[in-house]
């Protein structure tokens, strides 16, 4: 089993973000509730071997010293941890040397940093708190303490040109990091950015610009030895993120904290996404069981076979041909977008990734 822990706090919420995150204020209450949940879930799942842990957010690095340790201790006490990977996210402006050392002390062995761009103009327009200088400093600091450092970068940001993204990629590959995630900005309804775009105040790069930019970025990454192992993820050999691969392999995972999702025994469930409601519902849990979970979905066989394809095809390693049993027609229709790997698995071609959703739609059963 894998464990995901959600830390839903940020110094400031980015203007494109619609994740469950809020500015600081109730961290202490939240962590109390989180530890309470760890105890409750530990009673249920404490026997399962946990091989990866991932702390995401929000920004886990905004937590005050000591808080992280308390959470990790609770995990150690309540679960059977035999981890091969412990990742934690953080942002350049809060990843101080001390913070990095604390991470290390808590047993984390992988840091993932939200850099997004090394172009100061783009960073300002995206509402990020760091600049290119602090980002590079933070990366260098992380490299001192961790062997396995990952950086997130984005394409499709406001005012981001192809050149700007290419520069960012070029600067990143020489820092010695082992893993790069490259995400395209998705305009989500209800975000400040979506409003600015709809009002015509901000113009985003179009579909072709993004795709062309991504092509260029990929060239740089691959010539620097970063291999694409998933739609958006690139790693030096052996540094693929095991926790994330677990999602695509449909390994069991338990999500802890507000808005965290889980998959256990082919059942998907998730916690309430509002931080205050989460705290409240954990506190009254003694009276009414499990009301911090809002969605519970026992998957049908059809859903499981669809998930295996939808998630599995995200990985360049592909999926066994047997997964396509019952989908022979679709496999035929889209044959030009599939390739058979040397291991016999079926994977999407580079072009296939560009139209992935359109292909996947046809695999949903009526």
């Amino acid at each position, binding site marked *: 089993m894998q464990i*995901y822990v959600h830390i839903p706090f940020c110094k400031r919420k980015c203007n494109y973000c619609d*994740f469950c995150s809020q500015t600081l204020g109730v961290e202490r209450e939240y962590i109390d509730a989180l530890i309470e949940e760890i105890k409750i879930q530990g009673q249920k799942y404490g026997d399962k071997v946990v091989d990866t842990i*991932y702390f*995401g957010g929000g920004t886990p690095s905004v937590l005050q010293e000591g808080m992280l340790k308390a959470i990790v201790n609770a995990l150690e006490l309540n679960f059977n941890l035999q981890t091969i990977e412990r990742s934690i996210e953080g942002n350049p402006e809060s990843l101080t040397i001390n913070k990095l050392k604390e991470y290390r002390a808590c047993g984390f062995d992988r840091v993932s940093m939200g850099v997004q761009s090394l172009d100061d103009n783009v960073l300002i327009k995206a509402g990020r708190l760091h600049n290119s200088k602090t980002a590079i400093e933070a990366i260098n600091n992380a490299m001192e303490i961790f062997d396995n450092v990952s950086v997130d970068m984005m*394409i499709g940001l406001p005012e981001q040109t192809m050149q700007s993204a290419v520069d960012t990629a070029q600067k990143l590959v020489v820092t010695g990091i082992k893993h790069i995630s*490259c*995400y*395209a900005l*998705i305009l989500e309804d209800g975000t400040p950015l979506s409003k600015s775009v709809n009002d015509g105040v901000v113009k985003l790069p179009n*579909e*072709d610009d*993004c*795709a062309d930019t*991504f092509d260029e970025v990929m060239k740089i990454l691959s010539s620097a030895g970063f291999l694409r192992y998933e*739609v*958006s993820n690139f790693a030096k050999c052996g540094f693929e993120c095991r926790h*994330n691969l677990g*999602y695509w392999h449909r390994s069991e*995972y338990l*999500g802890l904290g507000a808005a*965290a*999702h*889980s*998959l256990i025994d082919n059942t*998907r469930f*998730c916690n309430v996404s509002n931080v205050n409601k989460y705290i409240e519902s954990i506190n009254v849990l003694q009276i009414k069981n499990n009301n911090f979970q809002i*969605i519970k*979905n026992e998957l049908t066989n059809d859903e499981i076979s*669809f*998930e295996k394809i*939808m*998630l599995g095809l*995200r990985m360049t390693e592909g999926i066994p041909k047997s997964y396509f049993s019952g989908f022979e027609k679709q496999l035929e229709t889209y044959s030009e*977008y599939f390739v058979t790997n040397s291991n016999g698995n079926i994977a999407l071609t580079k072009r296939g*990734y*560009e*139209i*992935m*959703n*359109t*292909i*996947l*739609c*046809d695999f*949903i059963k009526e």
Partner: protein
Amino acid sequence: MKSEFIRNFSIVAHIDHGKSTLADRLIQNTGTVSVRDMEEQLLDNMDIERERGITIKLQTCRMIYNFKGQDYILNLIDTPGHVDFTYEVSRSLAACEGALLIVDATQGVEAQTLTNVYLALDHNLEIVPVINKIDLASADIEGVKKEIEDVIGLDTSEAPLISAKEGIGIDDVFEAIITKLPAPKGNREAPLKALIFDSFYDSYKGAISMIRVVEGTVKVGDHIKMYTHDKVFEVVEVGYFTPKMKPATILEAGEVGYVAASIKNVGDTAVGDTITNADYPAKEPLPGYKKAQPMVYAGVFPSDGARYNDLKEALCKLNLNDASLSFEVESSLALGFGFRCGFLGLLHMEIIEERLEREFDLDLVTTSPSVSYRVTKNNGEVIPVDNPMNLPDPSNIDFIEEPIVKASIYTPPEYVGTIMELCQEKRGIYIDLTYLDKTRVQLIYEMPLNEIIYDFFDALKSKTRGYASLDYEIKGYQRSDLVRLDILINGDACDALSLIVHREKAYARGRRMAEKLKDVIPRQMFEVPIQAAIGGKIIARETVKAMRKDVLAKCYGGDITRKKKLLEKQKEGKKRMRRVGSVEVPSEAFATILKFDSDK
């Protein structure tokens, strides 16, 4: 009541000159409808009519007015005011002895003022001019009077000067109706002859005929029959409109009212037919009218192919009280099953579309409007073609003729140049220019109907800031260099987008459609060429680039549900797509391009 105390009249006017407002005022002043129940524009009882401020369907209302101690029955038969509905106007006029001609004191004589006057004269009606909106600061009463006398030739010395809105001069209107319009003649002892001038369906009473009794009487229990067929019906109810239906015991010669006779099929009470008494039949029918000829044709398809039967039912229902609408099944490769509909004009088409969408909750895709062309084939055979898909292969065509209209345009003189330019551009041929007075010019052009229904009216309105008015009548057919413009999507012709156009216009039109299509066709998995072609020749090309938008399709690690929902939504959307060959096109894209093409 003796027929000498009855007056049957219509009100005719150019659109917006105040016809419906005056009708309201007359109804109100006779106490026919209490103030409490008064709604603006009483006779316009369709939502669309009230919203657009126009009258589409004719309505009638019976009022009682006491003049010098004597009660008079005044039957007002309302008429539509738009050029498309000339046919309906003439139906109303046939049931009257006189007409009030409303002229706006601030606008003067306009295109439809004249059309309607001529229609009224055709029916030998007595016409009383009424000058409306005299309360407005810009009213030019003397100027308008002179214009009516000069242009129409009506004496205006005793014309009532009124403001229907403010209720000024309404009694003068009543006096004019009673003293100037003739009473109906007609022998009440003679065999029944009643003209059906409209009919509609009532779910309880069956088909109801609105009639003008010309001779004889009709009452409950009478056996009646129509002239065009021999079916006999027993009258279950007669009455008149106030404007709601109000039963009466008998309708006599000279009166206007309705007859219900448990007639199941509206087709059995065709407008223009004559009703007579089955036991005591009249020797010959009334003249009736000639059937309205559709001028504009278009394919109407449900956006959701599964709703074909709903559309069919809806058209049948609309057809009951709009006999001028014609339709037959059409099938399109791109749009599936639908109907080729014939309309009186563009407004009529718009109204029908709107009624289908509103009253029957349908989403429609309507193809570009077309006129009816006359194609002479090499073998001498002449066929009418109102659907581009039915145009024979050019090698089999000797020549094609298109309908030509005589267009009368009324405008302030400063727009003459602009209008002439526009008419020229629309292949118009100059016929005449007359200064009606210092502020009004009448321009006459002969012009292909095909150009008028494309975008002429909108262009005219926008180029003259709404000041010019247009009327037209069909003049005949003329040989013309017409071609079919086809649109190819990824090499496959999309039948729903084909058009018949003049060769000279084909290039511009083809280019514009290709450009627009490029914007509305969503990107596909592969690159899609869009071409406009005449015969085998490509005249314009655009390309919809291949989709790449999922380049980095995000998936929030643990949150799989969200991604699944997104894909399910996309799949739903895909299901609603129409297919042109291998290309998926949403119905809305057709609607957008076709709408855009017709109204610029």
